[in-house]
């Protein structure tokens, strides 16, 4: 089977700073890749390149076999992204927000699909409320619904847990678990335990460079934990 994500010598330079430096990965379909690293390691930058929001300075990246440089629009059909921002319009209702994205993606039965997703995140009863009035947890749930509305094959998560209370975390975990079948996930996290538990593959970055990458089986938690601590101890670049 074709790999979900393939990168070759992927780099991103901001001015003279190499935020991502020569990263080559291959992540199979259905995998769950956790990305670790200290502040400023280039995790967000890597995720943004893979989700076509920013262009690599050099190197190539393929998503489901599609070259991101050559056919970004085709690749976008397969991508879902949950970032720090909810990407929801605060002055539209939950339903209007999802409908907007469903129609932009060209989902065939947009109204039904929106209802289905609202049910999945337990927000159907609040669908006519404006997002501005939602609490943080509710917004996060809706944001998940938004990211999955086009049934993406690859889902990117950038520190999805930050600021959630434990209950919100639970709900989120359940949702992710129910969606893992057949999907590829890439998650950035500062929580080693959690990130390691969930993953099938792990990547450690420091100063834009790959420190370790491989399927989980190759790592033993103790050693990996040590490696991670060491990497993080290198400090902010």
């Amino acid at each position, binding site marked *: 089977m074709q790999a979900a994500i393939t990168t070759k010598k992927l780099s991103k330079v901001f001015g003279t700073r190499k935020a991502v430096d020569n990263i080559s990965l291959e992540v199979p379909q259905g995998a769950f890749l956790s990305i670790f690293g200290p502040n400023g390691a280039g995790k967000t930058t890597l995720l943004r390149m893979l989700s076509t929001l920013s262009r690599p300075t050099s190197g190539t990246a393929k998503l489901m076999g599609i070259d991101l440089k050559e056919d970004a629009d085709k690749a976008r059909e397969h991508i879902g992204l949950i970032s720090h921002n909810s990407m929801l319009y605060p002055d539209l209702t939950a339903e209007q927000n999802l409908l907007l994205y469903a129609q932009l993606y060209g989902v065939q039965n947009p109204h039904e699909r929106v209802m289905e997703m609202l049910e999945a995140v337990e927000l159907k009863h609040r669908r006519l409320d404006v997002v501005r009035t939602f609490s943080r947890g509710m917004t996060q749930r809706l944001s998940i619904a*938004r990211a999955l509305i086009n049934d993406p094959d690859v889902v990117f998560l950038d520190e999805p847990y930050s600021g959630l209370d434990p209950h919100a975390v639970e709900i989120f975990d359940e949702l992710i678990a129910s969606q893992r079948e057949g999907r590829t996930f890439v998650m950035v996290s500062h929580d080693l335990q959690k990130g390691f538990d969930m993953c099938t593959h792990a990547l450690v970055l420091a100063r834009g460079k790959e420190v370790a990458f491989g399927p989980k089986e190759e790592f033993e938690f103790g050693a990996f934990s040590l490696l991670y601590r060491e990497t993080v101890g290198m400090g902010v670049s």
Partner: protein
Amino acid sequence: MSVVLKTPSTFQQYKTLLRKDLEQEFRTKEMITSMGIYALLVLVVFGAALGQTTQALDLLQVSGGLLWTLIVFTSLLGLNRSFNHEKEQGCLEGILLVPLDRSVIFLAKATSNILFLLAVEVITVPLFYFFFLTAVTPGESFWLLVLPLLVGTIGMAGIGTLLSTITVNTRGKDVMLAVLFVPIIFPLLFACASATTAIIVGAEGAMDVFYPALLLAAGYDVIMLLLSWVLYDFVISA
């Protein structure tokens, strides 16, 4: 339920994006109220400034310039806010994640900006007439005013959309937009003000000024809109 995707036509996406802006405005009425109130305030300030004159001033002569100054300031305000909305929760990135032609985003945003600006003009131009022109007798083909208004609004909203996409990412967005927008829009402003003044004064040979000026404005519109359209992809992906 299995999800079937069928890439929608560009026009459908355009409609979806435009509808989003309109729905938002329909709910909050933020853009139109704030632009409207601001325009009114600017009118009042102008009134006070010109009311100083002890001798009667030939208001007809300056009215075109005044009207366009008013429109420039008001559209500055509107443009500033229109992209703030998109940035607020990272919505713009959400849209960029969707497989669609970048210029659709430009066209939809420019259209909504044009619509809001026109809506505000529908209120302010009569007010302007009321405040400044009832005491004097404007030319009889006064209604032709709509032509420069239309051409000017389209151009301002078009270039303004490009520029506000740029400035929404810079420090001190409001000033930056003004600093870029006013000089770049200037030829258009100039032509439209000429045409408007010619119409309002309605002197003999007014049409000899009116049509060339209008044509100039329209030409500028075309060039700038094309340029904005082409360059938009670079700006929005930066």
